[in-house]
């Protein structure tokens, strides 16, 4: 069993820890294919999704995952909560705990928010994204997807394109992939690559066209259009010209390679619509795997029993 109460990040997980989640997720894939895809494993447990930032995939897939395990689910949305009256994260959490929730899945714009809650609450905490720091459940579903196509991570060549500086998906994937022995590279303009990232064992490229044919997995990240205003890149047009995953670039990728994206996509900017919809793209498989992986995560951290 993964020893810790919480899943706050993937950086400190061992290979064995990661495999535990992935192996269990494979079992839950089978459950999800049944006519009635529900098991009673977490019956009686209450799971809260505490999302201070918008989310489509993560919040819904955690909600579905919990329900598939027969847990009771409560969903919190910042906009309709007392946070709008100035209530702090700490007070929100303490009040929720008083209502005896077993697990909290939290997404917040501040780095370390999940760690903060884990220190304050008895309930188990799953980090669904803390600022630009980590998004461990996304990385785990990404690793699961890669494993389905390539089986072995050693010698796997993975490229992440986009705003690495501001991406928790990039960080978590880098941590997880390096632990599993994969080769990881990033491609972006220097303004979007954080200082000293090469010390994490990551190779840096600025020119996508020169390297597009070298990778088994290419992951495109959503470019946040607000970053343009802070002079990190001059325009969306130039970004797409230099770093967009266009049809032409996709055609020059390795034959058995795959294209990934954590979503939501800016169609026509970091990825062209027909590339996102092509058979090289595994974007919707990622989402499907997301439910299974989150079932595995909830099962392990809520102390589920196999019947």
């Amino acid at each position: 069993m993964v020893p810790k109460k919480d899943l706050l990040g993937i950086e400190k997980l061992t290979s064995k820890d990661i495999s535990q989640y992935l192996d269990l997720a494979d079992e839950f894939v089978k459950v999800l294919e049944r006519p009635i895809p529900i098991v009673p494993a977490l019956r009686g447990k209450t799971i809260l999704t505490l999302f201070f930032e918008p989310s489509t995939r993560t919040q819904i897939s955690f909600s579905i995952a919990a329900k598939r395990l027969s847990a009771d689910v409560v969903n919190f949305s910042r906009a309709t909560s007392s946070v709008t009256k100035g209530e702090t994260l700490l007070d929100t959490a303490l009040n929720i705990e008083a209502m005896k929730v077993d697990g909290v899945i939290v997404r917040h714009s501040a780095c370390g928010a999940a760690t903060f809650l884990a220190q304050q609450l008895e309930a188990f905490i799953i980090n669904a994204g803390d600022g630009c720091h980590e998004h461990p459940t996304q990385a785990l579903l990404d690793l699961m997807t890669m494993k389905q196509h390539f089986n072995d991570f050693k010698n796997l060549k993975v490229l992440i394109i986009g705003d690495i500086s501001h991406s928790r998906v990039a960080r978590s994937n880098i941590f997880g992939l390096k632990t599993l022995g994969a080769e990881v590279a990033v491609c972006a303009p220097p303004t979007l690559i954080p200082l000293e990232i090469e010390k994490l064992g990551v190779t840096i490229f600025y020119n996508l066209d020169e390297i597009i044919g070298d990778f088994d997995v290419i992951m495109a990240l959503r470019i946040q259009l607000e970053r343009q205003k802070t002079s990190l890149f001059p325009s969306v047009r130039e970004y797409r010209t230099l770093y967009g995953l266009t049809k032409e670039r996709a055609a020059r990728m390795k034959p058995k390679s795959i294209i990934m994206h954590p979503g939501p996509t800016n169609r026509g900017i970091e990825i062209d619509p027909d590339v996102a919809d092509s058979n090289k793209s595994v974007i919707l498989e990622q989402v499907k795997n997301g439910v299974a992986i989150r079932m595995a995560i909830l099962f392990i951290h809520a102390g589920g029993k196999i019947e």
Partner: protein
Amino acid sequence: MKPILIKGGRVIDPQTKLDAEVDLLITKNEISQIDKNIRKKDVVRIDAKGLIVCPGFIDLHVHLRDPGRPDEETIETGSKAAVAGGFTSICCMPNTEPVTDNEGIVNYIYKQAARVNLCRVFPIGAITKNREGKEITEFGELITAGVKAFSDDGDTVANSNVLRHALEYSKTFDIPIFEHPIDKDLAQDGLINEGLISTRLGFNGSPAIAEEVIVARDLLLAKFTGARLHFCHISSKNALALIRKAKKEGINVTCETCPHYFFFNDETLESFDTNYKVNPPIRSEKDRLAIIEGLRDGAIDCIATDHAPHCQAEKELEFASAPFGMIGLEMAIPMVVMELIRKQKFSWMKVLQKLTINPAKIIKEKTGIIKEGGLADLTIIDPKKKWKLTESKIQSKSKNTPLLGAELTGRVVGVIINGKIKYSLKD
């Protein structure tokens, strides 16, 4: 008032270069006798065996939050914290509410300090009106009211021409300008030092170059104007190198660092503990070691605490929302003892220079001086005392220090100001 007899202490004074085991007799507000084995009846005896007796410390950089934030600190609670930390004089920064940019506030501060009657409190006046960085304050009026330096601390004077004029105008009075050398734009609203740690933790980082750029600019202006410039809280290797070079060229510049820059490096931020969130940020190990070297070779003149109280509710937030700052008055000596004296093998003589005569020279105030007829502003330290830092032991109203709960070595046990005992540790 009975004379005070301090017996058997190791008496060290960086001004007179005294370092000896001698007794001191204090009569009225002066040191009246220095001798081995003074015999005198009808005195207040202080047994200083195994302790260090030295001139009282001067802190050039304290935030007393008074007027404006009595929930965080007042002149009274800040003074209590100061004497508990061994400080006989403190300079309080003007980023109060309202800003200390007029003589009314300066008078208020002196009045409160007199009522509290503990350490000497010297207000620092704002360089610009309301710290807006546009128009300089009435230096003359503020100096008459009693300010000892000018600073817009919390911000650099961003407009180079305003800073030029402030430096030139300060020459009228031979009074120093204390600059907070951080370029706001380069700092990018960064929450911690920009480097490998911020990359791993996903934080927006404040790079060391934000400090270096302003230090470079300000040094050129100091050279151009010939004014007296002092840098607050130097935290990075490269900025320090520029200052060292400028001193060799004869530019009239001094600088301070804070204990947290020689005691911690940015790896501590992995804990996301908001008590490590300071501005400028705690930097890499490379910078920490450079700061220590700067203290060793004299590039850094003073140790100042940048004591920055914040109440619990404000610090008990997610990292991004918590304010910057940690308290420091009562933690300075343990951090000095544990890192500089014990680990880095600094002599007490060298350390005490940074806490007494060097800051005194900058604000042109007197220190205690251990000679017959010298002013009796003294601090007594137990350099070996082991103690656990708990909330109840902290005199400051705020308890925002990352050392809470830590086992410390070294503690101030007594303070005498103007010949009167103002602090005595009760275990």
